[in-house]
C-alpha cells in the first residue's frame, strides 16, 4: 500500500482486498445501535451528574445535532468508498482518492469508528499501544488492527492538513 498527496486529493494506492474491506467497514463500524458502549462513548456526558438540567437539555438539543454531524461525515466517507466497489476485478488491488475537501469528514468518521470499536471491545490502554499484535487471532484482534489502521490513516490526513492549512 502506498499513500501520498496528489494535487487536491490524498491517494491510497495498491490497496489490497483485505485493507479495502477494512475501509469499507468504516460506515458499519460507527453504527452505535449495535453497541451501547459505543453510543455512550460517542455521545458522552458534558458535565457531572450534579448538572441534571444541563445534561437533560444536552440530550434533547445537542445530541441530535451531533448525531447529524457524525452521520453527515460518515455519508461523505461512504460515497468516497464507492470507488472500492470494483465488480470487474474484486480481488485486485485498487486506489482510493480522497478529495482534500473531504479530509475533515474522513478524520471525523475514522475517529468515530476507532472510538466505537475500542468502546465495543473495551480495549485497555496497553492493548491500544501494542502495535505488534497479530490481527489474525480473533475478531477482537481484528478490531484492534482496525483501530490502529484507521489511526494510521488519520495521522496521514492530519499531516497533509498541517502541510496545507489553507485547504482544510
Amino acid at each position, binding site marked *: 500500500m502506498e499513500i501520498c498527496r496528489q494535487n487536491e486529493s490524498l491517494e491510497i494506492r495498491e490497496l489490497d482486498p483485505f485493507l479495502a474491506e477494512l475501509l469499507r467497514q468504516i460506515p458499519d463500524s460507527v453504527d452505535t445501535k449495535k453497541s451501547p458502549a459505543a453510543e455512550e462513548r460517542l455521545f458522552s456526558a458534558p458535565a*457531572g451528574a450534579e448538572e441534571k438540567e*444541563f445534561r437533560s437539555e444536552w440530550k434533547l438539543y445537542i445530541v441530535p445535532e*451531533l448525531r447529524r454531524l457524525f452521520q453527515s461525515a460518515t455519508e461523505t466517507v461512504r460515497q468516497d468508498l464507492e470507488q472500492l466497489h470494483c465488480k470487474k476485478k474484486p480481488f485486485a488491488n485498487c486506489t482510493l482518492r480522497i478529495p482534500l475537501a473531504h479530509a475533515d469528514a474522513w478524520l471525523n468518521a475514522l475517529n468515530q469508528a476507532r*472510538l466505537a470499536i475500542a468502546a465495543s471491545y473495551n480495549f485497555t490502554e496497553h492493548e*491500544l499501544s501494542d502495535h505488534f499484535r497479530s490481527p489474525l487471532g480473533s475478531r477482537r484482534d481484528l478490531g484492534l488492527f482496525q483501530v490502529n489502521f484507521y489511526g494510521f490513516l488519520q495521522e496521514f490526513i*492530519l499531516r497533509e492538513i498541517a502541510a496545507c492549512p489553507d485547504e482544510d
Partner: protein
Amino acid sequence: MSGQRREDEARSASQLMEYPVIAQGTIETPTVEKEVATKGEIQAPWNVVVHNDPVNLMTYVTMVFQRVFGYPRERAEKHMLEVHQKGRSILWSGVRERAELYVQQLHAYLLLATIEKAG
C-alpha cells in the same frame, strides 16, 4: 437556560469555526458602550475540562485545541500532554455560556470534554 438558546447553540455545532468579520470604514461618531456584567459573569467562572482518552491520537487532539480555542501549536501541545499525563487539562475558564459552547465544539470532534465550576 432556555430551550431556544439551547437550539441556537445546537445549530452552531456544525459551524465549528466562525470568525467575526470586521468591516473596514470610518466611524464618525464613536459610540461608547457601557460594559454591563450579567449575573453569570459575576458568578464564579466555569472551566472547560478535557479528559484523557487512550484512543484519540495526540496529533488529532492538538489540532482540535488549535481549531476550537485558536491556541498556537505550542500551547495546544502543552494542554494535550497535560491531558495525556495527568488525565485532564483545563482548556479555558470563563462565563458559562461560552464554556458550554466550547464543550459542544469539543464533542463535535469526539473529545471527552466537560464543564465544571472553577474553584
